[in-house]
């Protein structure tokens, strides 16, 4: 009842979805609509669980933690956003949208762009020719960078052609080998789930 019945139902549903790939018809149309609308409703309900979770985390941080003023501030900003939305709506040209465009966009984009600096520092420290393999790595990286910037082409007109060759030849060969591994791995995992050998998504 706790695990066996869900696994059995899951097995039949898997067979249904598997057959859906090969056959068409009203039964499978209804089958697809039944599940897609259903998963959509459940996803919305689970989002409510997420909201409850954020409130819980912030409550405990305000109550016990030293950094409580940052949590209070965070909750305040959330309330401000909701008030703005209630006051003037959420379309472009409203305070709600301005908070997004002039607050969220610079913060979000800058946090991510910090990676540029760490990549630069990391390549200075560790990008060294220690063996034949790492020489290949470095040369490929530099050729790709040159082929993807205007200066490379201005230096020698054949640089983009070389870049294309590296992309289409060795890079795609390596990527394809990794893809084969990923597809086979995914396939094994899915078959294990279908036959109930993999049960980590179910609890006691």
């Amino acid at each position: 009842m706790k695990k066996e019945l869900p696994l059995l139902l899951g097995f039949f549903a898997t067979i249904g979805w598997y057959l859906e790939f090969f056959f068409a018809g009203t039964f499978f149309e209804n089958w697809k609509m039944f599940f897609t609308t259903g998963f959509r409703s459940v996803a919305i309900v689970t989002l409510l669980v997420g909201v409850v979770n954020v409130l819980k985390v912030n409550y405990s941080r305000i109550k016990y933690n030293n950094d409580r003023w940052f949590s209070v501030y965070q909750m305040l900003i959330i309330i401000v956003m909701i008030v703005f939305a209630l006051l003037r709506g959420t379309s472009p040209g409203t305070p709600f949208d301005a908070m997004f465009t002039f607050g969220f966009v610079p913060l979000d984009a800058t946090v991510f762009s910090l990676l540029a600096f760490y990549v630069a520092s990391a390549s200075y420290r560790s990008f060294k020719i220690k063996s034949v393999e790492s020489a290949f790595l470095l040369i490929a990286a530099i050729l790709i960078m040159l082929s993807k910037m205007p200066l490379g082409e201005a230096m020698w007109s054949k640089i983009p052609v070389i870049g294309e060759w590296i992309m289409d030849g060795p890079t795609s060969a390596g990527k394809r080998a990794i893809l084969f591994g990923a597809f086979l791995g995914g396939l094994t995992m899915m078959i294990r789930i279908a036959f109930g050998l993999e049960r980590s998504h179910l609890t006691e």
Partner: protein
Amino acid sequence: METINFILDNTIMNTTFQAWISVLFTLMMLSFLFKDNPLYKLGENTFLGISLGYGWVKLWELSVVPFLIRPIKDAYLDFQPYDLTMIFWLLMGFTMFFRFSRTKAWVANYYFAFLFAYIAGYEIPVQVQQLFIQGSNMMKPLLEYPTFFEISKWFVIIFGTFSALMYFFFSKPQKGLLGRTARIGIIILMINFGSSFGATVMGRIALFIGRAQVLAADWFATMVLSSLIIVFLFVYFKFIHKEPGLDDEQMH
């Protein structure tokens, strides 16, 4: 109400204020590059607050109202037999709350069984299809485009993929012919990682270029605000925050 409108129009809706605040937020986040400091923390919490507030409002507007409240309202006003499926799925959704309980967590198993059944049943044929597509694409006619460029690529794709697979899949000692093939495989993979690395560097720097564009366009605000931030950081680390940070030793 008028006071609120006046305040809003003169702060967040004012174009000069908007330009300065976005430069300020950019510089606040960049100050992390010097050291972790309160300005960065302030920016971080503003970021979290805005993103959560924004997300909740938009989810309400775009998901909860059209796909949860409206169907329930419609079903309440005019009940149709197919609305039973919706009730079934909503009950399924509410089983998620049982996950918080220790003894009754198994109730949610029914939903997860359906979800994973969907993923498995949908993915098995698709993954097999992808394997065939990628495999058959390698076997192109050799002399389709008889140039050195294309023919050399043909050899690299076929034997490169093959030797990289050799390196991946054979766990027996890689000696002799297998060893030599696997070595070519390593080199192919290294070139692959090298081009990925080169592309990654480009992508990451391009992201900062987007920010630099904003800073350069508003150079006056950038100059004023960055000098203020530098003064703040100097005062803060010289006089207020005296204990040596943990990351000081990792700096070199």
